[in-house]
């Protein structure tokens, strides 16, 4: 075998191995999705959305309570986490820049991003649930906000820093004050990126179960009072799927399906935004 033939051979081996690994990875992904879709769609019907949870054996049983609880908990967390995250990211990129404080905040939020979410649930349990004396929707939202914050903060920081500094200089050179440079020029240049970060942040917390077990806990009935325990899709899914009753298990599948489609949808939208941005 000549030197060139050997190189071509090695090239083919490496290519085959990496392709094979990719296929194996994809197989599991589509397997999971497939099982989810088949069982999920089978379990879905109108009562899934129109009825609240019922004891096993009842026909009229659905996930309305969990869907609404989920919307409340994730919605409030988003309302709190997004402005906080964007403002903090703005501080890092536009004001703190490379200062010690900014670097420390970046490091801490990187660590927080990989912190196990159950730890954050336990933390909120200690500072909110224990003093209040009971579980609540607020506590769930607080836990999700804490998990969402570093993601939005860091993407905002990264996206703002991608805006060329000459664009800022050009705005300053026209006599713009700093806050106008940030709002009118920098945010505009980074809006797609920031929006992507927000979507990914929401998608990330929407699938959290562990922190909610410690905070908003669960409720089998429809509840819109945030200061009371509240149902969520994830915790409901956990309860139903691990129950011995077949109709509850079916609802568990339905919850899993709705949740996955929601998160998949958010991720796809985020990716479409990114593609549009790169295509420009």
């Amino acid at each position, binding site marked *: 075998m000549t030197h060139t033939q050997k190189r071509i051979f090695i090239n083919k081996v490496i290519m085959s191995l990496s392709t094979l690994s990719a296929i194996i990875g994809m197989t599991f992904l589509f397997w999971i999705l497939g099982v989810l879709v088949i069982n999920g769609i089978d379990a879905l019907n109108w009562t899934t959305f129109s009825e609240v949870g019922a004891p096993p054996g009842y026909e009229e049983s659905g996930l309305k309570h969990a869907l609404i609880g989920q919307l409340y908990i994730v919605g409030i967390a988003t309302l709190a986490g997004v402005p906080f995250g964007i403002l903090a990211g703005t501080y890092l990129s536009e004001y703190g820049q490379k200062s010690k404080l900014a670097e420390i905040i970046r490091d801490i939020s990187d660590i927080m991003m990989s912190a196990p979410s159950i730890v954050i649930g336990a933390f909120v349990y200690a500072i909110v649930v224990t003093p209040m004396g009971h579980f609540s929707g607020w506590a769930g939202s607080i836990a999700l906000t804490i998990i969402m914050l570093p993601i939005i903060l860091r993407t905002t920081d990264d996206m703002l820093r991608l805006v060329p500094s000459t664009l800022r200089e050009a705005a*300053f050179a026209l006599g713009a004050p700093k806050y106008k440079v940030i709002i009118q*020029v920098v945010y505009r240049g980074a809006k797609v990126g920031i929006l992507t970060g927000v979507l990914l942040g929401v998608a990330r917390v929407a699938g959290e179960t562990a922190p909610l077990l410690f905070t908003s806990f669960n409720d089998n009935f429809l509840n819109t009072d945030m200061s009371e325990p509240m149902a969520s899709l994830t915790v409901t899914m956990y309860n139903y799927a691990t129950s011995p009753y077949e109709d509850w298990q079916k609802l568990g599948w339905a919850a899993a399906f709705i949740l996955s489609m929601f998160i998949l949808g958010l991720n796809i939208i985020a990716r479409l935004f990114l593609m549009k941005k790169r295509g420009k």
Partner: protein
Amino acid sequence: MATIVDIQQEKALEVKNFEFTYAGADTPSIKKLNMPIAKNAITALIGPSGCGKTTLLRSFNRIHDLYPGNKYEGEILFKERNILTSKEDLINLRIKIGMIFQKPTAFPMSIYDNVAYGMRLQGIKNKTELEGRVETALKSAAIWKEVKDRLKHDANGLSGGQQQRLCIARAIAVEPEVLLFDEPTSALDPISTAGIEELVVELKERVSIIIVTHNMQQAARVSDYTGFMYLGELIELGRTEEMFVSPREKLTEEYITGKFG
């Protein structure tokens, strides 16, 4: 000491014993520099990379202040006032002394909004006035014909040369007295470059212009005065037609004949 030709006309700016030190640097990047800038004329700054010409240019509108720790010493007089004091109102200074950058800096908004940006900052809200001044600025920047039918389009859809002229329109829309050009054609093709050069020459009737360039032919083509800088010092300031033919300093001659740089 630098050889400085006597400028027999009014001065737009006057640099006196100016020193500039970047944050964290031990030695100044510009050392004890003295230089008059003629009014309604084009002054080119030439010199090898790192000679301090861009640093000097960026001192005139104090854009260095955006980054903490930079230090100015000496004086730059604009309308007989030292603009280097901490009391200087930078917003007003930058309205009077505009800047065009190396790469086009079109903002992520429409062509119209780009040109109106500076005027809106000054609180001009009247639609008729804005429209009129946007049109005048675009005409002055010789880009009106190309963009008049798509003023609401995204400015980033324009070509590099068009974007650069848009930036010039944006800068002159606020009616500055001085315009600073930082290598405005280094990212452009030859035809766009010729267009910008023509425009710069036309603009000198209304504003005083300082242009930093790496391209000596460009300095020779457009400027009335040329300053040659080397290692943070001004070596020679002369009338352009004289300086390129018979420079008085040996270093200038060596640079413009391509012996170094």
